[in-house]
């Protein structure tokens, strides 16, 4: 447990998730009523006349609802929740298990409903496979529910009602499920023609692996090494450079500033270094020294505790070829109190989905190089040829000493 007072940076208000339903009703309603009313509102707004029932399903929390012939278990939790509880009563009824689980996050005080997404019955069973102990309910992280309300509407409008089976759970943990057999049935064998078509039409523009190209286009941040010991007659000024954290030089300041939105940026100088230190308020918190035989090379994972919003550090680097007393300073700080992101959280959100990682890194390359590279070199990134190529591209970068 840390003992820091971070009251000023606390989350005071929460952004309403895009796609939330803002309900008019201000009367006392249960979470269940909120969610069903929100679903009805969405159907109305989209002019979708899909049969929804039964009427009793609005109030009875355990009752499955039926939307366009699909049996759906509506699950509710608070708007800021990170997990959701799933009652299992219906899951033990042979042939009576829900086909789809719909997760709704509710803020009853503000009358806001956000549908996080859905799980199909088979997806749910796969997730809880090893966690069943004959219990009445089970909790899952809310992030397991994908696709928002659109995924639900897509399924119930497109799929044949038999496309998602209603296989129940076995009460005993050790009992084998029909999952394996089902899994084979459920494989997306029909998907290929669609993917072929889509890949073909979209291919030239959409499938081009741009990550490596984007990585190659990252510019280096350079700063002149401050010389305190060299004479005026010295050679041209020595440059120090970093790929990350990237920094900018404002003429009005003598020290360049690197703004980081990630709490654990990596440090990478393409040139070998003699020395690197991180200090705060004049106190050295961490340092590493190279030797004549072995310079500091490669990337350095953030070596001290994660950066908190509002903190400021001084990063000092001494490139190869400089003497003691010659170094470049860079101020490392967070851009604003509300925008620091935790690497662990980002990693957790991305899970092990290779495509999602590539998307995220590519996207961050346009927004924030420090986040992109911290993700790229995260130990928790999934195995991927593209990610490996991108890493190689980073590590192969020429520094400013080779210019």
């Amino acid at each position, binding site marked *: *447990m*840390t*003992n820091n007072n*971070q009251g000023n*940076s*606390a*989350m005071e*208000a*929460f*952004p*309403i998730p895009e796609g939330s339903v803002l309900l008019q009703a201000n009367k*006392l309603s249960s979470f269940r009523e909120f969610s069903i009313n929100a679903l009805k509102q969405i159907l109305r707004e989209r002019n979708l006349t899909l049969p929804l029932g039964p009427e009793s399903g609005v109030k009875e929390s355990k009752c499955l609802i039926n939307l366009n012939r699909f049996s759906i278990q509506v699950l509710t939790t*608070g*708007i*800021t*929740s*990170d997990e959701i509880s799933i009652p299992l009563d219906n899951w033990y009824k042979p042939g009576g298990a829900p086909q789809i689980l719909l997760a709704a996050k509710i803020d*009853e*005080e*503000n009358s806001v409903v956000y549908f996080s997404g859905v799980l*199909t019955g088979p997806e749910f069973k796969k997730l809880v496979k090893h966690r069943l102990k004959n219990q009445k309910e089970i*909790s899952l992280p809310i992030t397991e529910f994908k696709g928002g309300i*659109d995924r639900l*509407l*897509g*399924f119930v409008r*497109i*799929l044949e009602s038999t*496309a998602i089976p209603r296989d129940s759970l076995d009460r005993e943990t050790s009992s084998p499920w029909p999952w394996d057999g089902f899994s084979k049935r459920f494989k*997306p*064998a*029909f*998907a290929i*023609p*669609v*993917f*072929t*078509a889509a890949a*073909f*039409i*979209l291919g030239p523009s*959409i*499938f081009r*692996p741009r*990550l490596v190209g984007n990585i190659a286009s990252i510019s280096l941040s350079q700063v002149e090494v401050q010389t305190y010991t060299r004479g005026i007659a010295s050679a041209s000024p020595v440059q120090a450079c970093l790929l990350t954290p990237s920094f900018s030089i404002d003429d009005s300041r003598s020290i360049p500033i690197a703004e980081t939105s990630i*709490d654990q940026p990596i440090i990478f100088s393409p040139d070998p270094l003699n020395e690197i230190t991180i200090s705060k308020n004049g106190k050295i918190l961490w340092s590493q020294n190279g030797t004549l035989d072995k310079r500091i090379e490669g990337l350095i994972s953030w070596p001290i505790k994660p950066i908190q*919003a509002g903190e400021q550090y001084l990063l000092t680097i001494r490139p190869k070829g400089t003497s003691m007393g010659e170094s470049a300073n860079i101020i490392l700080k967070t851009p604003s109190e*509300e*925008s620091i*992101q*935790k690497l662990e*959280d*980002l990693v957790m*959100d*991305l899970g092990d989905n*290779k495509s999602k990682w590539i*998307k995220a890194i590519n*996207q961050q390359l346009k*927004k924030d190089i420090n986040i992109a590279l911290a993700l790229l070199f995260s130990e928790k990134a999934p195995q991927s*040829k593209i990610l490996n190529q991108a890493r190689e591209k980073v590590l192969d970068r020429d520094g400013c000493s080779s210019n």
Partner: protein
Amino acid sequence: MPSPYSELCCIDSFKKGVGKKFIESCETFLKEKNFEGKSESKELDKELWLKSKNEKDSIESLLCLRCRVSKPIQEKVNTLFFKYRSKYELDLLSMMVCVLDDSGELFLRIPPSQKDKTLQYTTKPFSWENISTMPRNEIRPFGAEVIFTFNPSLSKIDTWASHQVKSNAELKAYFRSYGLLLISPWALLADSSSFRVKEAWLRCGSGNLSTNEIEALHRSYKINYKEAKREYKNKTGKILGWAPDSEFLCSLTPPQKDLKNLELIDTAIRNYLVGKNTSDAFIEIEPVLDRDFIAENDRDSKEKQLELIYDSLRRYGQLILEDTIDKDRSKWDKDPSRKIAWELYGKGLGQREIASRCNHKQGWVSKLIQEKSLAENIAQEATVGLVSFKEFQCLRKDPEAIDRTTELLASYLISIKSEGDLSLFRQIINEVLNK
């Protein structure tokens, strides 16, 4: 220097801001009771609160407390404003008006009860006795509600005022209209999982309790909260306003004598969550797919399918974007920058640049042009449309294929072939605007 118990922070309608009003009767009262010159303290807060409550018809002690709470109320609103103003177009004065509505009146205007046939407001001295006759959700000004619901044995008045600001119905509604939710500590604690609380305490907690003790306390809080909130709703007919009382705190494991530990957990969670909510940006669709996937696909045929996909995207894109822009069009006379924003978006400008040219915040642009959800909506409708063709009937049997298809179509809609091109999504917006 005036005492915090005799200086009222209130709206100054001339300055259109917050001003300070010296209340002489409070100063005289403080002098009489030998409280003059004392700075704010928990002891004095309690003494004045007890005086207000016990000497029910006295107005001075209550007025001193009204002065006292006006400052933390103002400070809390300031904190909220400065924290979120960079992204949301909040107006400080509008926020203040919701909660800083005390101008030091000596009389209460009591609304007519349902039984009262005259339907006229009555005026009574601003005393504890008269406040207690009012329905709780009608207690005005807000500072009086803070004091009336305050319990000095459970919390500090500054902290309590801060909680109450976040629970204020008007301020919550104001925030909601700008896309933000104010969540009370009690709801946040109830919403959080044990995992989150443990992580939050380990990373951001401060206090003497161990992580195990915090986990146990939070577990019992969640169990008792459900029942307490249900009872509160049944009893009061309201959703808003529940807060732990002494009885509730005693029911926790271990029993709590005040709100301090719960407040510490709330603070730890709020610190822990900073940054976590910004990760939504990753949900945005980026047109990248790995090579393994492409290799699986045969690129040789299916011309007809390709035509169908493209036509479907265009058709539903036009329908949905026409509908969206038409709905917005009615607001253009009042706010021409909305039209300009659409036009700039159609020309390929990014959110930041549009915001800057329209003299608005980025939050305003993202609320106006919801690219991601519109693209997903179009992609979904296009997929539904495709299913009517025999070439795409196979989608009816495969949930995963539906997921991937809609994802692909949404990606395509907003992707560009090369630098300087316009995505199909932006092209359609241009077409709709130029109709």
